[in-house]
């Protein structure tokens, strides 16, 4: 047990203090923050704050009443008696654009927009829409008017999972997708390190020293635990970055105030994360022991990673029909279940039977692969310059003497 701890500590330190690990761990949250900041900067720097005008030939915008929620842009909406005056104001740079509501507007709902070079932003469009809408319902009693202005807000209650989905909490639908991405990065990078350390120890012949000091179980167990700890460290940094980001951004972004901690999702992911990590780690141990050079291992792993990344290629199908047979297959298939369930979570309910069967299949596959990886590792660890061929691997798995 002491040796397992020593190996785990060594691998953990050797991984988290590596430049590549620090870069990938910090680059993702920093990169995302930079992209968001850039988007905000681009969005605000070119903002046109000139008033927007309108000519109301339909004679419906005669109420000065404003909608209850503040307009996002805060841009003044100015009335003009006719197009000529409005056009002069536009050419005089007094306004950025003006809308014309023709006399048949109530029946056609068609509006004309005039601008010089750049059309007004989406926010200006939304402000004007709100303004028109508020005028159209201005004659109704307050209660009805406010309700009409709020519009529909449908909440779907899932009686199986007890979860709720509503337009106002769209962020809670998006979160699992973001979390999937981070889970995936952490798992794959940890398994990549596992491949590297095993293949590197074999290539540098350190394996021979190690195996005469500790048991193979301690060696692999220690590495797995150390790299799992590194993966969890990476995840913790992502989570802390996300929490800090939410705290900072929530006062400015209304949607973020709706964020609730998705405990059920986190519970299911925790349930799947450990066996999924074990499965990937076992595959990487087997590859690392079977190849003769780190580079060869990375090539093989690159191909096998497709088995884990396959759900990404099905994103459209998962979005359109989360219950499609191919999606259910990916939900149950051990290498894709973790990611598929995570992606499906944001879109609705994953039936309990699928979660249960999927977990059992994943755990069973992981147990088998850990067993197989141990055999391949023991047979391949000292075969310097001689990769294990498929025939030998199969004979090892059939129970022939392995060392």
């Amino acid at each position, binding site marked *: 047990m002491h040796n397992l701890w*020593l190996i785990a500590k060594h691998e953990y330190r050797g991984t988290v203090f590596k430049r590549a690990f620090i870069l990938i761990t910090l680059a993702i949250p920093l990169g995302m923050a930079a992209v968001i900041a850039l988007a905000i900067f681009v969005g605000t720097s070119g903002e046109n704050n000139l008033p927007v005008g309108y000519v109301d030939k339909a004679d419906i915008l005669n109420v000065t009443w404003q909608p209850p929620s503040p307009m996002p842009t805060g841009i003044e909406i100015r009335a003009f008696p006719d197009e000529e005056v409005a056009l002069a104001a536009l050419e005089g740079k007094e306004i950025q654009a003006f809308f014309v509501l023709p006399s048949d507007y109530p029946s056609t709902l068609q509006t004309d927009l005039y601008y010089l070079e750049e059309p007004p932003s989406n926010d200006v469009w939304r402000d004007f829409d709100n303004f028109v809408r508020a005028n159209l319902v201005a004659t109704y009693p307050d209660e009805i008017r406010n309700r009409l202005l709020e519009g529909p807000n449908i909440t779907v209650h899932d009686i199986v999972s007890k979860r709720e989905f509503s337009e106002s909490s769209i962020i809670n639908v998006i979160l699992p997708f973001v979390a999937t991405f981070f889970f995936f990065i952490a798992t794959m990078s940890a398994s990549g390190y596992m491949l590297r350390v095993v293949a590197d120890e074999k290539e540098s012949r*350190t394996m*021979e*020293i190690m195996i005469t000091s500790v048991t193979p179980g301690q060696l692999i167990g220690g590495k797995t635990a150390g790299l799992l700890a590194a993966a969890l460290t990476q995840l913790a940094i992502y989570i802390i970055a996300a929490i800090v980001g939410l705290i900072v951004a929530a006062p400015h972004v209304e949607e973020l105030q709706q964020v609730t901690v998705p405990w059920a999702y986190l519970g299911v992911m925790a349930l799947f994360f450990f066996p999924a990590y074990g499965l990937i780690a076992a595959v990487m141990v087997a590859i690392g022991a079977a190849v003769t050079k780190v580079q060869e291992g990375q090539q093989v792993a690159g191909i096998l990673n497709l088995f884990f990344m396959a759900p990404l290629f099905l994103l459209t199908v998962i979005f359109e029909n989360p219950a499609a047979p191919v999606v259910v297959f990916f939900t149950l298939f051990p290498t894709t279940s973790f990611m598929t369930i995570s992606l499906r979570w944001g879109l609705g309910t994953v039936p309990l039977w699928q979660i249960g069967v999927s977990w059992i299949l994943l755990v069973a596959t992981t147990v088998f692969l850990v067993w197989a990886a141990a055999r391949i590792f023991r047979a391949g660890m000292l075969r*310097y310059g001689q990769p294990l061929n498929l025939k030998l691997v199969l004979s090892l798995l059939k129970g022939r003497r392995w060392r």
Partner: protein
Amino acid sequence: MHTIEVSHVAKRFGETQAVVDVSFDVERGEIFGLLGPNGAGKTTTIRLMLDIFRPDAGTVSIFGGQLDLAKKRRIGYMPEDRGLYKDLKLEPTLIYLATLKGLDEKTARSRLGEWLERFDLAEHRQKKVQELSSGMQQKAQIITTLLHDPDLIVADEPFSALDPVNTRLVKQILEEQRQAGKSILMSTHQMYQVEALCDRIVLIDEGRVVLYGAVDEIKRSFAGNAVVIEGQGDFTHIPGVLETRKHNDTYHLALQVGTDPQAVFRTLAARENVKIERFELAEPSLDDIFVNMVQNGAAKLEARHA
């Protein structure tokens, strides 16, 4: 109780029979040479001893029983191919490997300081292993083998890549370890080192033991299989002579097993332009014995010892 008892071990890898039948034992306080040509099965035998491989047949006993984790900690193993993490710094690497052998970090650090000083590596302790020369890496590997003060040292080619000064240092250290009662199993192709250091040897060829015993006894038993000649003329291409080496004005002839030195003398005497000033039977070097045994194969040896 022997430190190592290897009894009739055999090991096959697929179609290759790496070890056919090897037996020997190693005593406490001796340096034991495990010798053999390339591909003879030496490294496989070492790996069988250290439970890296399991034998198909035969038994291995270390410190009086099967190898377990506690016994592994009493062994210092230096593989032929140096095995240190290339991209890690020297000091933490050696401390890590020592702690896996049961040493606490403080003791490991303290002992390491002494060893680094002795091997003149102290100023390189913060360098990455890959930045060290091959000789330095070899010395670092020797430190790894000795740092936890093992009772059994298994060293595969310990003098590889060492200059004469460091070779002498390592020999001195091995002598000290023997004096301290440690058992040392050494595998090397440098026969003069074996001759200088080893108490007993086992010679393996094609997976079988072809020679086993005390170095002095073996050399005595092979006396007559070498002759020393002084004179002028051509002393090569003599039937029954494996090799002719000239050292200063002396010719050293290694004879095949069964070759009569008198027949060699007659052959030379019959040659024209050959003048013999001295012809005497010599005690062969281990090198001669090695070459003789390997070139003649096991069958003749068995006949000789029958």
